[in-house]
């Protein structure tokens, strides 16, 4: 099965999975059956409210995501005073933007510079700053990343297209507590005349985890 096919499947046929089962009578997979049975038991026992489940899913699927973090990064790039506050007290600074809540009781923002490259991992599970980045992607939770980020960070970065100069220090933050880490990536050259909103568009999730740099905009405003 090609990787591209997998993507296609995930993107466009996700909800259709369930519909297809209904239409064609295909049996539920084992895990689908488990989840369906568990949900119906919890609802019957009055331990969960189905509407609350929908609200939780909607929150993390449509409201909270890496655009939150991108707005923080863009603000820090254009506002030196905000950047100083952000690096000093990330929790309070992102709360100014209303980004608070689960998996973000304390947020520490670490700055990438020509001298220091920071990247974030959770080797023991999947700790991730939900309030600013949303739910973590599959690769962040996967065995390859969790095993290698701490023993071979430069190898991982290189595979992902980030060549860290030998003179630059790599710092890996293993999120073993309830403190959450976000990387403030370097502002790319050629963006001096861009607005805060335009800058926010450039910032990627992976740059805020520290496994990518923010690319110079194509045909930038130099």
């Amino acid at each position: 099965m090609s990787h591209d096919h997998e993507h296609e499947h995930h993107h466009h046929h996700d909800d259709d999975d369930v519909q297809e089962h209904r239409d064609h009578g295909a049996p539920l997979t084992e895990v689908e059956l488990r989840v369906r049975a568990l949900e119906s038991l919890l609802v019957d026992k009055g331990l969960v409210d189905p509407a609350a489940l929908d609200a939780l899913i909607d929150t993390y699927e449509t409201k909270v995501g890496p655009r939150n973090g991108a707005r923080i990064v863009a603000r820090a790039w254009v506002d030196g005073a905000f950047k100083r506050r952000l690096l000093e007290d990330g929790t309070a600074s992102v709360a100014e933007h209303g980004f608070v809540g689960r998996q973000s009781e304390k947020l520490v923002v670490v700055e990438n510079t020509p001298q220091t490259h920071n990247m974030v991992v959770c080797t023991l599970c999947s700790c991730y700053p939900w309030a600013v980045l949303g739910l973590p992607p599959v690769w962040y939770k996967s065995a390859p990343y969790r095993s290698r980020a701490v023993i071979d960070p430069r190898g991982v970065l290189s595979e992902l297209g980030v060549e860290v100069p030998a003179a630059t220090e790599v710092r890996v933050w293993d999120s073993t507590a309830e403190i959450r880490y976000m990387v403030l990536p370097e502002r790319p050259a050629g963006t001096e005349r861009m607005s805060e909103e335009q800058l926010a568009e450039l910032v990627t999730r992976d740059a805020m985890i520290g496994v990518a740099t923010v690319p110079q905009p194509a045909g930038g405003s130099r």
Partner: protein
Amino acid sequence: MNGAHDLGGMHGFGPVDIEPDEPVFHHEWERRAFALTLATGFLGKWNIDQGRFAREQMPPAEYLATTYYEHWLFGLQKLLNDLRLVSAGEQAAREKDPAAPAAPVTGFRVLAARDVDNALRTSRTSKADEDVAPRYKVGDRVITRNINPLGHTRLPRYARSKRGVVTLDHGVWVFPDTAGNGLGRTPQHCYSVRFEARELWGDAATSRDAIYIDLWDDHLEPA
């Protein structure tokens, strides 16, 4: 516990495969497993550390062969079964027959849809209000304890008996190594401790690089 979840420093898992334009969920059942886990967490019958420990108890071969939300599902079913909220027998019967009975439970305050926003915004799991004196200050040299508990711990295997330097004091937090085992909150200071890459991995590591790990007073001894 020295489980399959404690992955830091292992070899052989292959390249990191980033999926472009990845959706938040890949299947409908993942959405439901995610929401069921969050919603039942608000019942207040277990803490976040017990939630993690339940997932860690998935048999290692199974843990490595299954996906992330399957780990969550395992942990949730284990907690519900252990607490006699949903028994394994009830679950098996309901999978076979959608009309199989559900034994009633009473006395729970259930998360309502209208409370979701507020619950998520104000949710605090682990920050402690107690005024506890720190045992270390920024700049102190420390050595991690050599512990191999059967229960839950947040001191990864790759960082035991290692020398580091305290770089940030995060304040007072619940201690997962007791809370996760049902042994109380034991509030104490948590620090970011810097370990040189060579201290952890030997001379083949780059001399300039470092790993920062959040650890609690009870993980550390003065060095």
